[in-house]
């Protein structure tokens, strides 16, 4: 198999993603202020997922990687999501 060609991302794009990350950080703080009960954690985690997804896709170049590598990473993240989800299932209904 060959290596994926080296990809260079423009400054504008990088800055835009950075700005988006800052916005999402703001949203995380906002969520803690809202009265959502147990769903507060769900909201915070969802935002965190979007953020780490952006970092992985753009800053870590996963968007431009081989298919196999992307699948492997996806499986890993889904597994983690399931672990967290099942644990919450207990906590929510206790």
């Amino acid at each position, binding site marked *: 198999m060959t290596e994926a060609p080296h990809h260079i991302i423009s400054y504008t794009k990088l800055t835009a993603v950075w700005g988006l990350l800052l916005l999402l950080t703001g949203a995380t703080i906002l969520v803690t202020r809202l009265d959502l009960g147990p769903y507060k954690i769900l909201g915070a985690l969802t935002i965190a997922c979007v953020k780490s997804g952006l970092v992985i896709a753009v800053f870590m170049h996963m968007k431009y990687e081989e298919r196999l590598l992307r699948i492997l990473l996806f499986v*890993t993240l889904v*597994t983690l999501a*399931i672990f967290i989800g*099942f644990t919450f*299932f*207990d*906590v*929510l*209904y*206790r």
Partner: protein
Amino acid sequence: MNPSDHPPAVFTSFWNDTGKTGITSWIFSTDHKRIGLLYFWSVLGFFLTAVLLGLLLRIELMAPGRTIMGPETYNALFTVHGAIMVFLFIIPGFPGAFGNLVMPIQIGARDVSFPRLNLFSWWLYMMGAAVIIISLFTGGGPPDTGWTFYVPFSARTGTNVSLAVFGVFIVGFSSIVTGVNFVTTIHRLRAPGMSWDRLPLFVWSLYATAWVQILATPILGITLVLIIAERVLGVGLFDPMKGGDPVMYQHLFWIYSHPAVYIMILPAMGVISEIIPVFSRKPVFGYKMIAFSSIAIAAAGSLVWGHHMFTSGMSDRAILVFSFLTFVVAIPSAIKVFNWVSTLYRGSISLEAPMLYALSFILLFSIGGLTGLILGAAATDIHVHDTHFVVGHFHYVIFGGSGFALFGAMHYWLPKFYGRRYAEKPALIAWGLMFVGFNITYFSMMVLGMKGMPRRYYDYLPEFAPLNLVSTVGSWILAVGLVLMLVNLIRGLRKGEPVGNNPWGGATLEWTIPSPPPTENFPEEPVVTHGPYDFSKAGTP
């Protein structure tokens, strides 16, 4: 590759390739075979140490009251026995020792993808083990929490939990590194013609195992760091007084430790899937289903950890889900058992030592698995939870299952790497002693548990005395068999009859090369032309 580009192949066995024989030719070697043997002998050393502790536990339980030790010593001993058996023996035992020895050859590769990382994983393993050993003799002495390190006790006890847990943390890294190495190797280094549907089932099982090692072990690492954080900084993650949740610890611990039992059992199943067709002279029945069920076990097995927590105050709804999922995992496990039995059907069976271990694996693993369902059903678990029934059950799975499979692998594959073999008759006697001793020891424990004898106590009510004596005597028979097996095996490897390339008539690639194998494994890259259980073509790639 054009053969004339190469000098004629010289077969120097990997034992004397460097001309050096000192210890440095081993502990700094990046050859997968040498690393495999390093792992093998280290793992065996820890196994024997922990067996000794197990025998001491049984002697203490021989009669009610204090027999040879008090409660504190007993608590420390079962903790150290369990921790060594799990983290230093059976988890590294298959991937580290036999995975390293056999897997690269079975896929037709020269070595693993990252040979240096491979050596590093052994070093991590030894460093972690050293830290664990140091923890036994320093600070407050050996940990007394059980191998599960449950809070709140582990956060409070004065024994040296922090250091021991840190040692396990390091050993965890060695496991992750091996997993990464194996996944990469199996994806990238298969010889031409070694398609996924020609992969030996042992390799399939290691592949599934490697994924569990990669995905689950980091969670154990983090959990252990959290224990240290609780002890040193008192952050209160698991302390309700500070808003924490002790049940959360159990979640985190079992998210790793239930999949970890698949690190222990999957490669064992792989070994059995190799041995049974070879000694029945028949292609394995249902190759695809066995391969697929390895992946299914690894995936579904990651979702059942809650069955360890039915009595811990988990929500009823979660209990329902975890109980159901536990029964789901029984399906792929049973698929394997049925496939092995179908392979035996009408085969031309030869009962040599590896086969005896494989057959007893099927029986003992089935007993272990079925008693597991008693524990997996929430209603019955409430009665037998934390009794000796559990102790009997998991010894049937990890000792009668994984342990016996490892012994089978030792008889089956070590002659390949030493070029010599054990004597058959003593091997059969040793197997018989172990099989009988094993069942006496652990079946008694299951009955005791059913009657209500709890686990992890040095003492018990007088009505449990007779069966405890039986169990202890059983453990002596088991020990005699074990010693006989090892003496015979090691003598055979040093002075036994030389074996040719293919003593058992196997059809996988390791049997096409000399015993012991040359450093490069294959004189030139093999081109695979047939499946792993196509015995009409045995001995050719």
